[in-house]
């Protein structure tokens, strides 16, 4: 961990906010992708997948 001096709280809070938002964006994107994919596969199995 580098010595951030008197701006430690400033630097760490900026990085924490950014990383949390990025992780949330990636996590939500992957979660929704998996959910929709499963739902589509289930629907295609149910309807025979024609069309």
């Amino acid at each position: 961990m580098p010595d951030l001096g008197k701006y430690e709280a400033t630097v760490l809070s900026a990085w924490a906010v950014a990383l949390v938002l990025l992780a949330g964006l990636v996590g939500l994107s992957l979660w929704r992708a998996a959910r929709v994919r499963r739902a589509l596969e289930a629907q295609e199995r149910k309807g025979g997948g024609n069309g």
Partner: protein
Amino acid sequence: MSIWEYANPKKFMETSGRILPWAAALSALTLVPGLVWGFFLTPDADRFGSTVKIIYIHVPSAFVAINAWAMMLVASLIWLIRRHHVSALAARAAAPVGMVMTLIALFTGAIWGEPMWGTWWAWDPRLTSFLILFLFYLGYIALWAAIENPDAAADLTSVLCLVGSVFAFLSRYAVYFWAQGLHQGASLSVDRAQHVADVYAWPLWLSIAGFVLLFLTLVLVRTRTEIRARRLSALVARERME
């Protein structure tokens, strides 16, 4: 082969499925080293102390926030002119990514501004146009969600995207239009007097590359999800009619 073949959802799914693992791997291979280099291996700056480390998240997120809207503008124009559904869905997929990038830029800028400028916020031309861009992102996402007919939603959101482009353009060039405000000029510039020192520039370029590749990866993932969701809705609607 014409580029418009990729507007076919089936062709897009095949091609994007092949590109996606490479895009994800490349984004990880640029983003992680860029951020680690910037945070752990760069020295403090004379004027800004250790707060200089915030540029490795602030500048790339702001860059992507503006250019995500530019990508949405191109996709919206393709929808309005050629009526390719994949382009409308790609614009829709990019909006939440751009919105989060705008939010990161606003938050990190405010956190940096408090010790450096003595205030979290100022009605500076660039900051204000960036806030308006964020509101446009919110409005764009809400409009897609509010309209049931997908073609009508694509039409209206495309028009909103054209209007919002003014603010995306302003947030990029506001510091040049108005010689006032707190926000400094570009960190990476051909003007050597304005350009940050190389010791900061190289990890910054790597972080920007990482953010751009992450944006590309997320847009591919989310566009594929939108295409699947559209097909799912069609299948469910057909089942109800039978």
